[in-house]
Structure formats: C-alpha cells, structure tokens
C-alpha cells in the first residue's frame, strides 16, 4: 500500500514538475483602453478577429535561458510602450518556452499556431529555425527570428530574419583580420553548432579568396576545457585569431586564452559586445579584442540610448542584444500591419516584405528579396577603462559602422 502511495505521489509530482519546467506558456494580454497588463494561462482558443496575437517562441529554460528571458522582457516592454503611445491595435503576446531545443521549439511554434497567432517572433537561433521552418511555412504564419546562419537564406517562405546575417557579419570579421590587423596566417576557433559553423564557412572562404592560410579548431556548446584547441591554434603559426563563438562560452574561451598567454590579436563574433557576457569575464581577458558588434550601448545612435534607458527602467537590467533584437521585431510587426492593411497573417507577411527604412535599435530595417530585414553591423574594439568606483572595466567602442546589400 505504502509503495502504491509513493508511486502515485511520484507520478503526480513528475507531471507537475514537467509542466512547471517545460511547456508552460503565458499570455500577456493588454486591454488598449486601460493599458492594464495581465498574465494568464494560455488557452488554445482562437483570438477574437480584432486581436493581433503575437506568438513568442523564447528559450526561457534550457542552455541559454537568459536570452529567452530578455526577449520576453523586451517584448512586454514594447507592448506596454505601444499601448501607452498608440494602442490602436489590440495585441496579445502568447509566450511559449522553446527550452532551447529543437523539439521544444517545434512544440512552442505548434502551440502558437494552434492558439491562432497571426505572427510569431522567434525561435532564436538558426538551429531552432531550421527545425521549425517547414511547420510554420505549412501554417502560412510569418515568423521573425534572430537566426543568422547563411543556411536560412531562401529556406522558408514565411521566415524573416531581423539580425545581420553571418554571411556579412563573419565577412566583416574576416576582413578585419586581414585589413585592420594585417593577418598573414589566421587561426579560426568556432562553435560546432550552426551559428559557429556558418561563420567558419564564410571566413574560410574569404581567407581562401585572399590567399591567406588558415587552420581551424572547433568546440561543442557546453565544453568546459578548450585549452587543447587554443594551444593547437597558437602553435599553428597563426598571427591572428578569428573566434566565432556563442556568448555563454565567451568567458571560458577568453579566460583560457588569457591564462595560456595568448597575445595574438583576436576578432570575435558579436557576443563580445554583449554586456551580460562581458560581465562574466575579468576585464583583462577581453582587453583589445575586436568584434563584430550589433548592439553596442556606447553607440551614439539615439535609438540605442533610448532603448537602453527604457529597458533599465522597465527591468532594472542592462539592455542587450537579444532583447533589442525582438524589440525591433515587434516594431516591424506594427509597421507590417500598417503597410499590409490588416492583422491577418497574409497581410502581415505582405507588410513585412514592404518594410523599408524602419529605424530600430540594431539599425535600419530594409526588407530584401530574401526576407532579411537587417543589413548593418559595426566593427568594435574592447577598451579598458576605469569605472566611477576606480575599478577597471572593459567596454566595446565602435570603430566603424557598416552596411551592405547581400
């Protein structure tokens, strides 16, 4: 009897636990007349015809939960600001957790589709986008993602990307190695996922075109020791390193390079300019690093300064790339509704394709024929400065703002 009771208790607690950490979704519904925001359990009913339901596929749990959290916070802030300033469209956010996995992302977008969302923001990350693209295309729901892999180009009819594609960002980084740092032999260190591999492919092609010899080493997401790879690159004869890594790994990589006495100039992916990852590093680990920046808080652009101030006030946290990315995507949806003339998926898709010159935090959205909205990034360098309390801090400084047509 006791065993049966225990078994039953376990089964119940497992169900509750899985429900709590896995599939819970939230609706953030805003009544435009009062601008009150309330959060309720998601229901699978279709929205009223006058409500724009925006699905949000965010990795709130999993390997990089902070990215999902910031994405959700930024979107909630965007919704609140929209209702305070305009509010002509009644909007609901339908937030679903991707758990940072392909299976989780698929569940999240399916839930958004079954909830009747007319547009979906996310999932973030190229690997997840590749996993859900066919499903969302089949549902004919436009979705906007921060995925940057070249593999996404022309893959899905309903996908719009809102960050600068790796094809360009990695090319800028590779170009900086050769033109700014006069590299004659480059070591490429990259994450083995779609993001890192995409950057590596672009950079290696560029170096081959330039006749620059290179060697490459990879690491896996979640690796904790990369000293073997770094030593291999240092011993390869490289006079410059091109590091295309995810932000959560930045502290581990920069610490290892610093501890191994690596004095080679380093050009990194945009993670190096993200404050939440900078905070994980000792200032001297990153001093002098170059990077391809997207969200740089020290930028003199007004949209960046405004977003940083608003986000700090709204959340108490420093603004960063992931929140800024989807804050811009939200603005794109609003613009698309105006341009498309309706809140149904077809009109929004039509409107998204028409977007030109929309100023957002990361730059200016100009939709091209491959559904890329963003074509800008900046070359930055990490500089050591002194904080108000006298301690050393490292912060990105924009060297050059660049834009391109793919």
């Amino acid at each position, binding site marked *: 009897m006791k*065993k049966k009771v225990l078994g039953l208790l376990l089964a119940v607690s497992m169900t509750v636990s899985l429900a709590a950490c896995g599939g819970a979704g939230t609706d953030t519904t805003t009544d435009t007349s009062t601008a009150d925001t309330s959060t309720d359990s998601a229901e699978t009913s279709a929205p009223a015809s006058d409500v724009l339901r925006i699905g949000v596929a965010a990795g709130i749990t999993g390997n990089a939960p*902070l990215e999902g959290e910031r994405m959700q916070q930024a979107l909630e802030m965007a919704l609140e600001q929209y209702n305070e300033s305009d509010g002509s469209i009644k909007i609901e956010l339908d937030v679903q957790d991707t758990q940072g996995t392909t299976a989780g992302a698929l569940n999240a977008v399916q839930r958004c589709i079954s909830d009747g969302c007319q547009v979906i923001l996310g999932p973030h990350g190229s690997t997840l986008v590749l996993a859900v693209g066919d499903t969302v295309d089949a549902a004919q729901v436009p979705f906007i993602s921060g995925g940057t892999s070249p593999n996404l180009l022309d893959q899905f009819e309903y996908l719009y990307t809102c960050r600068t594609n790796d094809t360009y960002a990695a090319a800028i980084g590779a170009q900086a190695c050769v033109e700014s740092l006069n590299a004659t032999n480059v070591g490429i260190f990259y994450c083995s996922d779609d993001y890192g591999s995409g950057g590596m492919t672009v950079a290696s092609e560029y170096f081959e075109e330039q006749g620059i010899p290179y060697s490459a080493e*990879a690491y896996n997401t979640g690796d904790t020791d990369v000293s073997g790879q770094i030593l291999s690159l240092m011993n390869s004869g490289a006079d410059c390193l091109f590091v295309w890594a995810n932000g959560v790994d930045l502290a581990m990589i920069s610490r290892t390079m610093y501890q191994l006495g690596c004095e080679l100039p380093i050009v990194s992916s945009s993670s190096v300019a993200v404050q939440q990852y900078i905070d994980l590093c000792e200032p001297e680990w990153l001093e002098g690093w170059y990077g391809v920046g997207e969200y740089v808080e020290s930028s003199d652009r007004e949209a960046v300064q405004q977003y940083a101030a608003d986000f700090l006030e709204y959340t108490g946290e420093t603004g960063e790339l992931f929140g800024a990315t989807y804050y811009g995507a939200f603005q794109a949806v609003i613009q698309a509704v105006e341009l498309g003339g309706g809140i149904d998926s077809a009109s929004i898709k039509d409107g998204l394709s028409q977007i030109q010159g929309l100023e957002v935090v990361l730059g200016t959205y100009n939709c091209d024929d491959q559904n890329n909205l963003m074509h800008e990034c900046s070359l930055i360098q990490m500089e050591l400065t002194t904080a108000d309390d006298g301690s050393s801090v490292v912060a990105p400084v924009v060297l050059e703002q660049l834009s391109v047509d793919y």
Partner: protein
Amino acid sequence: MLNTILQLAVSGAALGFVYALVGIEYSLIWNATGLLNFSHDKIITLGAYVAAGLFFTKMGLPIPVSFILSIVVMILVGFLMATVVLNPLRKMTTIFTIMGTILFGKMIYELIRLLYGSAPFTVPGLMTGTVHIGSLVIAKSNVYIIVIAVIVVAALQIFMQTTKTGKAMRCVQQNKKASELMGINVKQNIRITAAISSVICLIIGFMVIPLYTVSLSMASMIGLKGFAAGVVGGFGFLPGCIVGGIVVGLIESASVLVIPSVYKDAVAFLVLIIFLLIKPTGILGKKS
C-alpha cells in the same frame, strides 16, 4: 610539442579530479542505498549558487565565511534528499528510484531558476591567475582543483577507515540487512551519506566556478562524465573512481592531439562503452 602535451596533461588531470569527485558521489549514494542518484549535477549547481550567489554575492560575506555557511546549508539539503527520496525509495523498484532522483533534481533546478533567475554570473578574482614553470603556463584554478580534490579524497578515506560512522557506512555498503541486524541505523546512515555527498557537491560546484561560471547548466556535462569515471574506475569503489576520473580526464584532454577537437566530448563516453563491453567491473573493480 612536449609543452603542449604537458599543458594538456595538467588541464586533463584537473578535469579528471572533478570527474573523480563526481564519481565518488555516485558511489557513496550507491553503496549506502543501492540507488543511482541522477540529481548530482543539480546539487552541484545548487552548491555553487548557495555559496557564490547567496552568501557571497547577495549577502556580501567573505569567501571563507560563505563557504562554511554553505556547508551547513548543503548538509541540510543532504538530509532533505535522504528523507524525501533516498530512504523512502530505496526498497522500491528501480524505475521509481530513478524517477525520484530525477524529480528531486528537476525541483532543485526550478527552485534555483525561480530564486536566482537565468543570468549566469561569476565570482570575480576567484582562483584566477597563472603559474609559470619554464615555458609551461598552468592556470591557478587547475592547481587549486587538483589540491582540493586530493585533500577531499584523503579526508574521505580517513573518515571511512577510522571513524565509527565511516565504518558503519562501509558495513552498510557490504550488507544492509546484516548491518540492520547488527544494530546499525541504516536510515541514519543514509542521511549522513547524503549529507557528505551534498557537501562534496558544494566543493565541486565551488571549484569549477572559474572554469564554468555559475549558471543553470554548469554541471550537466560533468555529471555525466563523472558517472563514466565511476564505471571506468570501478563503480562503487572509491579509489577506482579516482583512477577512472583521471583516466577519463587525461584521455579526453589528450584526444585533441589525434582527433578533431569537436569529438572530444564523445571520447569520455566512448571509453565508457569500451569498458562496459570489455571490463565492466572497471580498472580497479572486483568481480562480485
């Protein structure tokens, strides 16, 4: 080349000692209860969050004080785990015991996420810096890990061999029923074992902060590799876990010299499979 090999050997040994401690944890619980505890990685994470997140960062206490207070908290966590999971489930079928430990870990994970949020953080200046021996550069964190792990292992061996409680733990390991008949309080024994295991988790969590930063996923891989270390060395046999941990750490670290580095993670599990096929009792394990 020699320099690179030595460099890899040091980092491999440091990781190996971490795996060894995780393997020891698995073995302690296994020996005391006959259960495989699949919540180890979450308890390691909890240890790091309690020490670095609660006492050091939020309360601003010095690191030694934070660590001592964390030991108290983790002993209580160990008692809790023994009371709600290990003792009630040890006589049930395997599937329920596995579910129980996984669920306990899930609950800890969610608790950490709710209390501390998702943002990773670190302890500035903790075990940073390098030691130069000729052209060899050794991270101080690796040195600390090796030294602390050796001290923990030695202390554990002394405890198991010389104290009454340690001897009782060894008796329970050999025959639980006979131990009960001889007057040993097995439930109490399991509580003490779980508390020791939790404290070891705290030590591991604290040691690896410079390597991994404090994040929700900081221990997921070392949990699995620690299990591999236990099997390779001889599951349930503490010296075997140490040997297994060092072997796995060194092979994994040296593998980048001969195979593409992207397959490094797979090496530990490949070694695990080879041992399961060829010598399932492990390097130092004995046939039952």
